[in-house]
């Protein structure tokens, strides 16, 4: 437990000040101020990111990598600068190990259809967890259908945490890959990736981490956590939609075949054959989302100026407040860990007598944006005995007064539907 002095000395995040940097947060919805609590789905953008994308088109737009002229150089510089930023952000990895994709989903699909298809066979095992998002589930289901590889799932306990005792017995010598989320988009659970990676490596298995929900909210060092692949999205960390990346260890990427073919990813092309470019370009066919990637740099810069430690601390405090206020409501059940040590700012819950869709509809009429449904995790939701839940997710600009508005709206919804 930190001393009061230590807390005072740390740079505290001022979410009210931060909100001024996000123009959309001052709009209203159905006559009410927007209360945006759907950050696990996508995040809002600071004006610096919006302007970076606009400025790219105003001043520097050209196609990348091929041109001699100045605009082409500037565009390439902006695009490649983001790659360098990511390499540093992930803990100082090689820039060639960072592949740009459209998002986490495309990144994981790349590993499944390239590394997976080439390396896995019927007697092999892939270990997933019960809390995976469809992006880190369906590609492996497809792979199992193609190759006959066995899929097993690390179970979760009643608190929404992974059953680590089971991990030991499920990660067998036949295991070739453990694919898991670092933070659940439904339960908010932060997983002990390092521990599980150790078990995986002991059996000679690789580790793929779905970082879509984690990296926006905490510092990540891919080598420290023991990942061999790490996938994440730009739009969930203040960046533009259509941006994301796969980090992979050099030897793995160099051995992998590309899955998209065309311009940019080639070296030599003749009528009857083609050779591939070096990594990372081998995996970046065609003209990419240059403007999006260029503007993504500004998102990193913004988070850096705030400090990821400050973001994490803010979210701890905010989530603690959210959980405390939600727990006061007798008609509400929360899913996932109750300790913010093990959970991020994502909370799924159920209100007695109100279906999530009706609840989300009603909250929307009060300007409160939440998500209802299966959250791209149908097997997990069904495991919880539900077909849908309501989900609230915060970020660095979320405030405690927004939590108060949420609570008031939940009480009003209860009166509206139940009486």
């Amino acid at each position: 437990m930190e001393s009061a002095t230590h807390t005072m000395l740390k740079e505290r995040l001022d979410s009210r000040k931060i909100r001024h940097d996000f123009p959309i947060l001052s709009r209203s919805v159905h006559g009410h101020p927007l209360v945006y609590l759907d950050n696990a789905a996508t995040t809002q953008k600071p004006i610096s990111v919006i302007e970076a994308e606009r400025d790219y088109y105003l001043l520097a737009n050209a196609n990348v990598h091929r041109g001699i002229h100045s605009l082409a150089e500037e565009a390439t510089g902006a695009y490649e600068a983001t790659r360098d930023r990511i390499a540093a952000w992930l803990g100082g990895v090689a820039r060639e190990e960072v592949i740009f994709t459209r998002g986490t989903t495309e990144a994981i699909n790349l590993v499944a259809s390239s590394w997976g298809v080439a390396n896995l066979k019927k007697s092999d095992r892939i270990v997933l967890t019960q809390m995976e998002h469809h992006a880190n589930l369906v590609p492996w289901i497809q792979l199992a259908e193609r190759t006959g590889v066995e899929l097993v799932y690390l179970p979760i306990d009643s608190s929404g945490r992974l059953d680590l005792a089971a991990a030991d017995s499920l990660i067998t010598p036949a295991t070739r890959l453990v694919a898991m989320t670092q933070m659940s988009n439904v339960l908010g659970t932060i997983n002990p990736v390092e521990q599980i990676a150790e078990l995986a490596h002991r059996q000679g298995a690789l580790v793929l981490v779905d970082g879509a929900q984690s990296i926006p909210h905490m510092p990540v060092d891919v080598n420290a956590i023991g990942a061999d692949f790490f996938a994440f999205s730009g739009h969930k960390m203040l960046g533009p939609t259509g941006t994301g990346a796969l980090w992979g260890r050099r030897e793995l990427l160099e051995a992998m075949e590309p899955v998209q073919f065309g311009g940019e990813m080639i070296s030599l092309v003749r009528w009857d054959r083609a050779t591939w470019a070096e990594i990372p370009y081998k995996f970046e066919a065609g003209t990419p989302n240059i403007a999006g990637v260029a503007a993504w740099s500004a998102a990193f810069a913004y988070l850096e100026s705030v400090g990821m430690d400050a973001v994490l601390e803010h979210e701890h405090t905010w989530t603690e407040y959210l959980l405390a206020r939600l727990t006061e409501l007798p008609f509400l059940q929360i899913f996932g860990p109750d300790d913010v040590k093990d959970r991020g700012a994502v909370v799924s819950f159920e209100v007695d007598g109100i279906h999530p869709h009706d609840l989300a509809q009603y909250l929307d009429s009060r300007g409160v944006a939440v998500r209802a449904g299966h959250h791209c995790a149908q097997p997990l939701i069904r495991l919880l005995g539900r077909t849908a839940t309501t989900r609230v997710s915060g970020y660095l600009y979320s405030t405690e007064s927004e939590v108060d508005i949420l609570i008031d709206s939940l009480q009003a919804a209860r009166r509206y539907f139940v009486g």
Partner: protein
Amino acid sequence: MHNHDHQLDEMYRDIILDHYRSPRGRKDVSDPTVVNEGMNPSCGDEIELKVRLAGDKVEELGLHCAGCAISVASGSMLSEIAEGRTIGELKRIAAAVKGMLTTGEVQEDVDLDELSDIEVLEGVRQFPVRIKCALLAWVTLIEGLERYENGETVKPSTTEESAIA
């Protein structure tokens, strides 16, 4: 009152909330001729429906709908008007309900005002994402009846593609 609040109240009228809180038709049906299931996976609405036919008339209908207020209410309203009607009549009513919710036009020779509380569902039109919730029970019923007419077996249906024609 803000226009959107008015629209919301139109969708969630007292009649609909009453059907949601006390849904009609929740009974088992002995010797069912047709059993069908339907779901909207993205919403989490699920319905199971049983019909006993006498000739081409519905002698008894029971259903069990778990889901949002709109899907439950719509199922409840369906159960109030289905018994005693022929397959042909029910097909025309289902088409009329779909028309009411999608284009706002009812092509069939059906007066929805006469049919219990069904025309109250019209408020759902203002919330296109919820139309499939209102149609689930109807689609599940009609698909089940059509399969029976074709001598086919039963599979789950979904209104997710068919709702917005």
